[in-house]
């Protein structure tokens, strides 16, 4: 019998738990044109969208590290208007399940973005990227202050009907506490996790490799940390919300590990750069894994860790 790969994120039902992570898949066109039908994925999470287009940081913006990479793209994106007129129609036409990742400099930005996107039929859910500095609060990141994170979550939640996913930043140390605040504020699901701030230095030039000095670390190097955070939040949370596990997933074993740790779905990020067909391959491989392991429903894997 064909196993059931469907998962629910709030009211949204996904074909399967394999999504692609924000910022590592553009707006889907390149992958669809060159590699595979992106409607096959559980969902496409777009590059983070802001109200106005953003230029992003100076270059170099990327650097390789041991089993990972740093990026300081600076959230370059086309902005809300261009996204709706130029990018969304394509995603809608190819029937991609689309989750829009949004980012702002103040709570009002998030609310306006979310409200506008809530009206767009091509948008299936909204992912709040709170790893951004709050310009109104002296630049402290929304994602490193549980109260602020709760506030932006509830402000957005009040105004939209579509499922709201909040993407947590590992740059705050107490994940269960952060998760509790955000869930109490109305998040339908949690994405765990964004990149960890790091840096690379060119010893010969005596300069940071990234023009921005600091950048976000992603890739297999961070997988043990991401798995721990997913597991901690899953074990601590009473009001259980689906967790979307993210961080260094490269293969089917990694996917299963994140599910066992407590994820309902996963996002494939940097791996898309290493192997452009990986996300589609993983959809097939996950189905095969379930058949081989006699698992009828993907939900059996979520939180299936024996501790």
């Amino acid at each position, binding site marked *: 019998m064909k196993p059931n790969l469907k998962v629910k994120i709030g009211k949204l039902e996904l074909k399967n738990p394999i999504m692609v992570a924000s910022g*590592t898949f553009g707006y889907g066109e*390149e992958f669809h044109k*060159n590699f595979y039908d992106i409607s096959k994925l559980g969902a496409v999470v777009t590059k983070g969208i802001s109200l106005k287009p953003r230029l992003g940081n100076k270059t170099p913006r990327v650097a390789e590290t*041991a089993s990972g990479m740093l990026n300081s*793209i600076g959230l370059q994106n086309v902005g809300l208007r261009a996204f709706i007129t130029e990018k969304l129609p394509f995603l809608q036409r190819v029937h991609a399940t689309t989750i829009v990742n949004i980012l702002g400099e103040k709570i009002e930005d998030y609310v306006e973005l979310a409200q506008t996107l809530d009206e767009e039929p091509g948008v299936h859910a909204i992912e709040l990227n709170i790893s951004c500095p709050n310009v109104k609060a002296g630049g402290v990141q929304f994602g490193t202050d549980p109260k602020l994170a709760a506030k932006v979550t509830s402000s957005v939640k009040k105004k939209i009907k579509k499922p709201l996913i909040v993407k947590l930043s590992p740059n705050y140390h107490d994940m269960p506490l952060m998760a509790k605040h955000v869930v109490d504020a109305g998040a339908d699901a949690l994405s765990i996790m964004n990149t960890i701030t790091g840096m690379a230095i060119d010893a010969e030039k005596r300069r940071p490799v990234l023009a921005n000095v600091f950048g976000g670390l992603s890739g297999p190097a961070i997988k043990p940390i991401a798995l721990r955070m997913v597991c901690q939040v899953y074990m601590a949370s009473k009001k259980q919300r689906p967790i979307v596990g993210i961080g260094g997933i490269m293969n089917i074993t990694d996917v299963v590990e994140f599910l066992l740790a407590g994820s309902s779905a996963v996002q494939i990020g940097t791996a*898309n*750069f*290493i192997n*452009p067909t990986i996300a589609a391959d993983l959809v097939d491989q996950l189905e095969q894994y379930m058949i081989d392991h006699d698992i009828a429903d993907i939900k059996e894997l979520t939180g299936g860790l024996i501790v």
Partner: protein
Amino acid sequence: MQDTKAKILLNERYRQNYFMMRLEAGWEDFVPGQFVMVAVPGGKSFLRRPFGIARLTGEGILEICYKVVGKGTLDLSSVPVGTNLQVLGPIGKGFDISKGTGNISILVAGGYGIAPLLGLAEALVQEEDRSNIHLFYGAQNEEHLLYLDEFKEMGIGLHVATQDGSLGAKGLVTDELKKFLLSTINHQPSTIFACGPHGMLGAIKMIAAKNRNISSCQLSMESYMACGLGVCAGCVVKDSLGNFVRVCKEGPVFEARELSDI
């Protein structure tokens, strides 16, 4: 663009620390100036590495030429023939030959920048009078010059400069280019196709800007890349409007006047 598992047919030291690699890609077509992203075995290189396409034969054999500069290229140089490598390509916007039709074609190369110009020259000789094609090629010394025989055979104009004068003129190839533009062809419409170090490209942009006969000056740019797919926005350079454009998508070849970063 496709991601192909390609068998290594050749991987040899060519000269100094330049290596030549041939891969059974099976691809049918490419535009000179396009590049590939190669997954480097050995475990030390997490990201793929970009290399310009030197040639693609009728049998789909891909040739690249790389200089060992760091851990990735060092590891690549010791991968045995017969190994399969994951190669993504052809990537990006190559040289636009059509803009040069009827013009004098001036190719300018520095270092491994010669590789994509080989493919370009092979395409140009199909379309243009060989005497209207000139290659300006600069290197440290004689030992660092690549593909010279191939270019000689094509019968195009060759202008070599080495820093130590061991072959051709002594000095910078851009000085040779300046002299050439002042003398011979200063009244003929010309197109420049250049690939090489950032500094060289900057000098060429200046030269082109001052010379009204140069209708198109196409520069092949480099930058740090993560995806090569156009999705990460890691590889951008600034265009003349102040916007960031992707080297792997809008480039690597740009009209000089459309760039502000150089």
